């Protein structure tokens, strides 16, 4: 028998095996779950900086993608956001909150250990917020603090040669003290972001902005306090959150399916040596 003939027979044989094996499996789209679970863990940033040697980062880019995918999936009836984050970048937090606002399905946020600042901003965009009585939440405020080294430089007889075109170009450099005018600019910017944050929370939660302003001192609250202040809806953990989803989305049985970006070994190694992990090029960061 010629080689070609043998090869054709083998391929037909394998095709039959493949067809028979495929007919054994019965997998429908809905088998994978009807409630998407999206985790917001770690500091919220616009891009991921996860690696073998760094703390976890919640990338708004990845989370927004996951939200879009879950929203587009016909089998997904609701989205559960499991939050364990102290907040982070104002822009990244706002991006996540805006993406949640666009979801046309039931959304529930579950604050586990911590869901403060930017993480609370994102949670506020959900239909309901569930938090453990001992979890930490709130902290509606903005921070832009940084270390200033001018005194240290002076001690070592190092001077800062200021060469700028545009008088505020080096505002926030750690090499020199802020002038009162520069301090005023910074404070004004932080106040504007704070105002934006307060209005976003008020709008998302359907609260009076003045009432949100009263609690938006940057103070954090434990779950039970937050419930009294109207910052969250239900005290509890995952069971309570799932129960709430059943009621809100009118689902009798919940099958959770985790939406997350898969991370390869190579990307972790690449991340370990990324600029952000080595602390390069970091200036003033405004975080919520």
């Amino acid at each position, binding site marked *: 028998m010629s080689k070609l003939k043998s090869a054709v027979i083998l*391929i037909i044989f394998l095709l039959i095996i493949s067809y028979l094996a*495929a007919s054994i499996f019965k997998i429908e789209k809905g088998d*994978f*779950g009807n409630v998407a679970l999206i985790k917001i863990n770690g500091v919220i940033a616009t891009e991921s900086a996860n690696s073998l040697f760094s703390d976890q980062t919640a990338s708004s880019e990845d989370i927004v*993608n996951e939200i879009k995918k879950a929203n587009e999936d016909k089998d997904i009836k609701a989205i559960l956001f499991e939050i364990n984050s102290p907040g982070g970048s104002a822009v990244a937090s706002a991006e996540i909150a805006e993406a949640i606002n666009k979801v046309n399905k039931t959304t529930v946020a579950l604050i586990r250990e911590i869901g403060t600042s930017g993480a609370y901003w994102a949670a506020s965009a959900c239909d309901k917020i569930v938090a453990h009585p001992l979890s930490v939440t709130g902290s509606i405020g903005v921070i832009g603090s940084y270390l200033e080294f001018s005194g240290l430089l002076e001690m070592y007889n190092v001077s800062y040669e200021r060469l700028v075109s545009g008088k505020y170009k080096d505002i926030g450099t750690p090499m020199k003290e802020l002038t009162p005018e520069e301090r005023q600019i910074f404070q004004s910017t932080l106040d504007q972001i704070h105002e934006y944050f307060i209005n976003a929370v008020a709008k998302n939660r359907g609260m009076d902005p003045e009432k949100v302003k009263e609690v938006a001192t940057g103070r954090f609250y434990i779950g039970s306090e937050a419930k009294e202040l109207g910052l969250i809806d239900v005290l509890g953990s995952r069971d309570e959150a799932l129960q709430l989803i059943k009621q809100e989305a009118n689902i009798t049985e919940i099958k959770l399916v985790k939406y*997350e970006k898969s991370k390869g070994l190579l990307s972790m190694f690449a991340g370990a040596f990324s600029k952000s992990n080595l602390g390069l090029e970091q200036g003033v960061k405004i975080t919520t």
Partner: protein
Amino acid sequence: MKPKRSSLFWKRTLAFLIDLMVIDFILSPFESLVQNIMPISISIFESNSNLIWLIVTMAFIALLYFAMFEYKLQQTIGKMVLGLYVVSEKGGLSIWQAVGRSIFILPIFPFILLWIIDPIYLIFKKIRLSEILTRTMTVEEVKR
């Protein structure tokens, strides 16, 4: 018999790519099932253990393709196109040698380690570790 030498790296890579296309055709009955598990970003294994068996079954059929072709013909389709052969010390391959040299396809530990080790061996020693362990070799005919 014509003289033979170790096959060139690029020829082996190209042959493997052709084989992947053939496997893709053989696994076409699974297409509708695979489309049901999209989007791929979902951590599907946590939600449905059936899927692990689906992936293992598909990998097993791919293993069958390499093992059967190399056992029966000493060549896969890709190797036929590129003029490559698989030989052992005794000439032809036993069924265990044929299975052993392609066992890396199964996505199961410890075989999965060969996904990294085999290419490294191939680049630096011009032979895969799986080939050393199964006492087989991929060769090509030398044209005179």
